[in-house]
């Protein structure tokens, strides 16, 4: 993985000094609240319903064991002993003291971490496939390009004061695990037949109040031009994006207003002036950044497949875990393990300091010291030898990170909701818990297959409800919490937005309604058909009919 050089280290060290001085000016009354807000947001510090929330950047979801131990220390020392894995692969702390944040940043800087641009109207932490570099279905490792984007976008002089937040995601694999269709910019990187690395560039996707699938405005962009092309897009957005209404300020609204063709023309005209400028990457630049992401020293020859066969026969729960939580690795003899945080009764994505330390230990013991965070809010160990899976699973079970539910109905993406967030209309975590309670054994019984269930507490859509196969949105109806259910959303390849099934439901009625939906699915399902495929085949009507059958 990428290691800081003296340049990176100096920058984050200076960031700590700079932010500390800003905090001191605020505390001394020299900087008014509304002005400090803009500064602290660009350093990931929100003031939430109950306390400040600090979002720490985990660039493209990759960290090492030392960094994770530092996060565990921060959870213990500055917080209440836990942190939260976010849907953008970052880590959030819910209870830091505003005055202590500079000290936290200093501790982060000591392990090559920071909170730069994790909130505010600027270019946010770039995200990617949590299996980047190890996925069997990958054509190009996206991490070197993510790192180039990270550096290019850090404290950019021109693009730190955009109309609204700006999120870039990159994927280089056959299966899109980075949800590139629902980002402000989605990049698909691939290798051509003659070995050239190229990008397809999508713009204007996003969730929130106005969910939109991104439009491809450029195909086959050579890697050398990546940063100048991004510069052209950002300049067009910075100049022409709406600033009069925050709900209409995302790039998707601009792309819609200009049309995708109109937007592309504007970007191309701008890029004509930037093509070949000094920010163009040369072969040497690309080779040097790629050198940071060379594969570790994998053991050969591969072993462990036989013993695994025996172990999975003996332990059905392990077999399930292998099926759901373990993905194919590029290198024979290794596997990618997802450690689920989705334990019934625990808010999705919440992890304790003890769990963080444990995961860091396993990364060292069973891998090469590397950990990933997925946008589904789980931990990933990217390099586990097959013969060690069983031992790891046992330990994960004991640490409450062994749930075998990845991609299943109880692997819920969920925002903090009304329990924590001042924007939320409704609570989301208790809904997640109720669904997990009701359907964990249901899934076991009926084998529902891959099913993304996403919950947002308000239409800002932090829980990505629009792209859940089943999406739940908290709405406010005359001061009471209600929930709107949508079906058929999808975040990966061939992304789609969910359709609302009908009038919303009270909190008590949500689990039963989900059960009705699942019963329709089980009745209509072809053998082993996933929920999404079934829904796309049979359409909304059968679900709607049964769900509202007993209403007037």
């Amino acid at each position, binding site marked *: 993985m990428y290691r800081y050089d003296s340049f990176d280290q100096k920058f984050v060290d200076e960031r700590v000094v700079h932010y500390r001085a800003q905090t001191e000016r605020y505390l001394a009354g020299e900087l008014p609240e509304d002005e400090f807000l803009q500064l602290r947001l660009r350093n990931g510090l929100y003031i939430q319903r109950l306390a400040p929330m600090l979002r720490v950047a985990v660039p493209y979801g990759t960290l090492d064991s030392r960094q994770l131990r530092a996060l565990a220390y921060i959870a213990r020392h500055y917080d209440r002993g836990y942190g939260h894995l976010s849907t953008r692969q970052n880590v959030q702390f819910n209870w830091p003291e505003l005055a202590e944040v500079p000290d936290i940043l200093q501790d982060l800087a000591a392990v090559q971490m920071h909170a730069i641009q994790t909130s505010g109207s600027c270019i946010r932490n770039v995200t990617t496939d949590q299996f980047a570099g190890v996925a069997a279905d990958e054509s190009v490792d996206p991490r070197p390009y993510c790192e180039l984007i990270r550096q290019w976008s850090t404290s950019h002089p021109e693009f730190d*004061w955009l109309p609204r937040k700006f999120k870039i995601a990159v994927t280089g694999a056959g299966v899109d695990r980075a949800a590139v269709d629902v980002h402000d910019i989605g990049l698909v990187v691939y290798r051509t037949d003659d070995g050239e690395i190229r990008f397809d560039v999508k713009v204007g996707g996003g969730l929130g109040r106005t969910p939109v699938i991104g439009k491809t405005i450029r195909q086959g962009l050579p890697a050398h031009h990546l940063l100048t092309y991004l510069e052209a897009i950002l300049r067009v957005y*910075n100049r022409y994006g709406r600033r009069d209404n925050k709900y209409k300020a995302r790039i998707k609204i601009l792309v819609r207003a200009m049309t995708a063709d109109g937007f592309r023309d504007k970007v191309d005209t701008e890029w004509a002036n930037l093509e070949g*400028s000094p920010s163009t990457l040369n072969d040497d630049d690309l080779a040097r950044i790629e050198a940071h992401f060379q594969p570790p020293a994998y053991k050969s020859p591969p072993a462990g497949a036989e013993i695994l066969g025996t172990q999975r026969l003996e332990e059905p729960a392990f077999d399930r875990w292998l099926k759901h939580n373990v993905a194919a690795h590029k290198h024979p003899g290794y596997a990618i393990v997802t450690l689920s945080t989705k334990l019934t009764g625990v808010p999705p994505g919440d992890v304790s300091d003890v769990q963080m330390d444990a995961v860091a230990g396993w990364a060292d013991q069973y891998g090469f010291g590397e950990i990933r965070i997925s946008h589904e809010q789980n931990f990933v160990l990217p390099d586990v030898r097959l013969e060690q899976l069983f031992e790891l699973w046992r330990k994960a079970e004991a640490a409450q990170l062994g749930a075998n539910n990845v991609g299943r109905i109880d692997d819920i993406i969920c925002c903090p909701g009304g329990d924590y967030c001042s924007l939320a209309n409704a609570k989301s975590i208790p809904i997640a818990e109720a669904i997990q309670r009701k359907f964990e054994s249901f899934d076991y019984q009926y084998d529902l297959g891959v099913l993304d269930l996403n919950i947002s507490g308000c239409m800002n859509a932090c829980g990505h409800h629009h792209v859940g196969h089943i999406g739940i949105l908290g709405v406010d109806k005359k001061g009471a919490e209600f929930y709107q259910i949508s079906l058929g959303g999808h975040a990966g390849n061939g992304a789609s937005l969910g359709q609302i099934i009908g009038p919303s439901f009270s909190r008590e009625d949500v689990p039963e309604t989900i059960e009705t939906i699942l019963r329709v699915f089980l009745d209509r399902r072809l053998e082993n058909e996933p929920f999404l495929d079934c829904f796309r085949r049979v359409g909304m009507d059968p679900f709607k009919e049964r769900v509202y059958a007993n209403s007037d």
Partner: protein
Amino acid sequence: MPTLISHDTITPISQDGWELAEVGAPVNGSRRIVPVDDWRPESGDGLHLPGDAEPEARFSEAPLIAINFANFSDGRGLSLAVLLRTRFNFTGELRAIGDVHPELLYYLRRCGFDSYLLPDGRRAETALSTLAPYTDYYQASVLEPNPAHRRIRRFA
């Protein structure tokens, strides 16, 4: 009183020599900074542009361009400055006016501004102490056309 910071030092307004003119205002000794509708390339007047102005080649003949920031978090003036400096080769004085925030001069500076009129109540001390909070930056800028990795051995 607004404070003028020019070439990284506080400059008394009396020594500035520029005055922001309303449309049709009389000349009173100072050189004027006028809105684009009143401005002629050969006039010697400074040019006053809103942040969302479209830059034009003829603007580069102005001795001074003042870009107005409607509010400090509005980044349009940054892109306008970059375009004037890099696309239209404007070499005169580029001044930030309006809701200019002392904490943000380091962005403005890297986009090619060289003077800043801080509104009344904004702290000039802060502005001067935070003009360059970082020794160096990753990406290219108006001040430094080459990104860091092109200037120094990096990624190695």
